[in-house]
């Protein structure tokens, strides 16, 4: 890669010969300056450049052994030009001068092929961003051997308990830089680490997962032990009749369900009349114990402090005590609605506008144990799976429980239960939340990570039961 990368690789050569590192940020800004110069000389009135670099490693295991182990390293340059009220984007990972020049020319050529857009905005000028520190050198230093040893320990636990482990341990680093012809410059880098494990004790299974910028924020062994314990409890599941049950959703289950709500808060979605909030802003839509904000600066969040247009991400209060109060706005959506942009726009051009990507639900003080103890009859849900929207306005969602569904009776977990299919309005579910746990950084498989609490919800609608 770059000179700086080569030197980084060389300096580590004695102990870790193949461990690469991200480029120096100056290299990314150098690419931006080069492209902006090329765009100007090619006749672009304005231009915007994004440069992204990833260095990701993922160790995957199944049947108590590593079966896949991969590493990815690459840079992409994404160029948007504007000329005569027209814009288009070209993205490439070829970063030599002639390739970048060709990408600029392509962008101009693409842009010229369309009708003029009189509402097209010029790019924003210089912005100020809040500083976030999400690059942890201990995460960046993790090696394939480190991951393999952690996986080995988890698999050894499975073997000891006559179980079968499967999962991933990934670590990585990435950086993003952007700039435009009006002098805007932004840069961000982060590390990320994730451990996910499924422990299988035939015919049952259970699961645990964590995700953080700092690999030291979770303990793979602890996650393995939790999944192992719950897998054992999940054996001998009994079939219950379908119907409405009180449910205690662990944070991952809450996340994957409410993750389908975020785009509804986009001003463009409301303008397009495809949001469930059309006609519902300012009304009591959820329970009064539901408050939601979008906050990229929450200490448990990851992500850049700027959006795809380079605007600073603002904290936006979306729902206050059950009432949707605010939407998020790209620059274009803001202009149409006569509002201020909130820093949630996607890279242009696009038809979707914007979305809140850093949701934070207000939590409560009820632990899972307290929720269980307060429940006369209900179901404890570890995780839900394959969730899809059945009805976009009532927000009816369907999906399955997975990897640990338990019956709660008279304040205690009494048995495992066969998995159910639910068909449940998300709006209604959030009107029937009886207890909230502390908000934590939750991670699942359907939604990106958010800060959400465990929830106890009454009358959750289960319509079908499966075979296990």
């Amino acid at each position: 890669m770059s000179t700086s990368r080569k030197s980084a690789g060389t300096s580590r050569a004695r102990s870790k010969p193949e461990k690469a590192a991200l480029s120096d940020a100056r290299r990314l800004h150098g690419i931006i300056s080069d492209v902006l110069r090329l765009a100007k000389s090619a006749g672009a009135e304005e231009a915007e450049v994004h440069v992204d670099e990833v260095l990701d490693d993922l160790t995957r295991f199944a049947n108590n052994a590593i079966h896949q182990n991969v590493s990815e390293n690459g840079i992409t340059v994404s160029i948007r030009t504007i000329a005569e009220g027209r814009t288009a984007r070209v993205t490439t990972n070829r970063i030599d001068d002639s390739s970048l020049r060709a990408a600029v020319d392509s962008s101009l050529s693409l842009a010229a092929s369309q009708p003029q857009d009189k509402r097209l905005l010029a790019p924003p000028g210089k912005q100020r961003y809040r500083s976030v520190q999400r690059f942890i050198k201990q995460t960046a230093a993790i090696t394939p051997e480190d991951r393999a040893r952690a996986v080995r320990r988890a698999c050894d636990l499975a073997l000891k308990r006559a179980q079968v482990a499967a999962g991933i341990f990934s670590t990585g680093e990435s950086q993003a830089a952007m700039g435009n012809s009006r002098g805007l410059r932004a840069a961000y880098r982060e590390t990320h680490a994730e451990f996910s494990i499924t422990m299988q004790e035939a015919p049952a299974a259970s699961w645990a997962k964590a995700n953080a910028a700092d690999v030291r924020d979770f303990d793979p062994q602890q996650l393995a032990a939790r999944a192992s314990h719950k897998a054992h409890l999940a054996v001998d599941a009994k079939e219950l009749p379908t119907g409405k049950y009180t449910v205690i959703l662990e944070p991952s289950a809450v996340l994957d369900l409410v993750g389908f709500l975020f785009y509804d808060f986009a001003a463009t979605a409301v303008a397009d009349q495809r949001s469930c909030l059309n006609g519902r802003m300012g009304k009591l839509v959820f329970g009064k114990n539901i408050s939601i904000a979008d906050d990229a600066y929450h200490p448990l969040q990851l992500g850049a402090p700027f959006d795809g247009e380079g605007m600073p991400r603002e904290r936006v209060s979306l729902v206050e005590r059950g009432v949707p109060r605010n939407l998020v706005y790209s620059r274009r959506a803001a202009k149409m609605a006569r509002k201020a942009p909130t820093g949630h726009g996607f890279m242009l051009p696009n038809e979707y506008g914007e979305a809140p990507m850093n949701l934070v639900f207000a939590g409560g003080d009820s632990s899972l144990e307290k929720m269980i103890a307060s429940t006369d009859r209900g179901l404890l849900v570890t995780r839900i799976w394959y969730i899809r929207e059945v009805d976009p306005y009532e927000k009816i969602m369907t999906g399955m429980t997975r990897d640990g569904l338990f019956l709660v009776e008279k304040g205690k977990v009494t048995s495992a239960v066969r998995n159910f299919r639910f068909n449940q309005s998300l709006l209604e579910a959030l009107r029937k939340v009886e207890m909230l746990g502390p908000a934590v950084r939750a991670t699942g498989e359907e939604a990106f990570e958010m800060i959400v609490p465990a929830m106890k919800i009454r009358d959750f609608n289960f319509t079908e039961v499966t075979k296990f």
Partner: protein
Amino acid sequence: MWDLAGQALEVARLRGATYADVRVMHLRQRDLTTKNGRVGTLAQSESIGLGIRVLANGAWGFASTDRLTREGVAVCAAHAVSIGKASALAKRRAVSMVAEESFIDSWQGPFLKDPFEIPLESQLALLLATDAEMRRIKGVTLTETDMQFRKIDSWFASSIGSRIHQRKVISGCGIVATAFQGEEIQKRSYPNSFGGQHILAGYELIESLDLLKHAPVIAEEAAALHSAAQCPQKTGTLILGASQLGLQIHESVGHPIELDRVLGEEANFAGTSFLTLEKLNHLRYGSDIVNVVADARIAHGPGLGSFAYDDEGVPAQCTDIIKDGQFRGYLSSRETAKLIGLPRSSGTMRTESWNRLPIIRMTNISLLPGSWDYDHLIADTDDGIFMDTNKSWSIDDRRYQFQFSTEIGWEIKGGKKTRMLKNPSYGGITTEFWNSCDAICSAKRWTLWGTPNCGKGQPMQTMGTGHGASPSRFRNVQIGTAYSGQ
């Protein structure tokens, strides 16, 4: 490209790999969309790089790079070997694979008109005109159109001596009309939902779709759904249109036959499968008339699962999956074939890009045509519901219990399609459902649908799969459960 691939193989060998395969891939993509009469996305992208998979100390390692220099490739190959050696720290057995021949070949998928050579102005003009046709229908509140074109070149080289170049051109197109009214959002798509139809073809696909003719039809249906009756909740007869049946095949046949799922390799993410090994050749998967194949050969059609060789260098094949209702075969790789004692891989290892590991993926998983004429099938149905165009899909992690909803339904009474139904849905247990199939339409109504968005693997890979189907009838199906209890 062959020099770089050869160098990667040589570095891997010198570092101690006992097997290696390399993919250099160049991917180009163009995306065009419109919304409410304006251009939405107008973007083009390209990506080129190299990925190398090695066996070292009996375990797998994979690394990828976009640094296509001798130094960059050497670092990448050495890194792959060091990762393989790290994998060996947590191995239970040495990886072993069934034998495969080496091939030196070059192949290009079929296309007549290179979509990247068609003027953008005419592509956008067609989308904008289609968009306008939908917007002129009263009650339509949102109109969207899209075209997507891809050109993928891959150069595969392996340490057993294969050198295979393949080129694919993929085209896709879809349109959607949405109507928001009162407290309900209804939509209709053509020719399919979630991006439309995608196949191995050039711009001739777009020209064959006749977008301008279909635009007002779906727009009128989207508006009309608001005054349609709610789909009833009952157990009854269901006829599925071909595109919805394509997705039904994908979810309830295609995924459970993936041998990596069956063997537990996807247990943490995509899930496992109810098709455990003892069921092979013993399970009655469907009724006698149900015949499903996994066919990657171009002779099957220009599907998203068509190719000459998979990304492990194994030639495209046709495998019986369900024969006369009996479960007959899995999708396998060289490694998983060995694990269960098959003589050869079925050739289904596929990768999204140079920076992803090949994994077992569907090819073209198709329900072979039956003998029924479509009009006769409707006339033969006394009381049933016809459902078409997918709206939502969900299935459990072992692929037993599923639920689908579609954009539109039609009641069938006394052998005739009668009133329109809104919010149709159905669900069931996979084998019970396929065993209830009593009529499959003939080749006249058979279409090889493309599913461009199948997600699997960690890190996630998106793959295109093909599914041939014709309208088919199922008895005693649970209908309308998605809205029950609301």
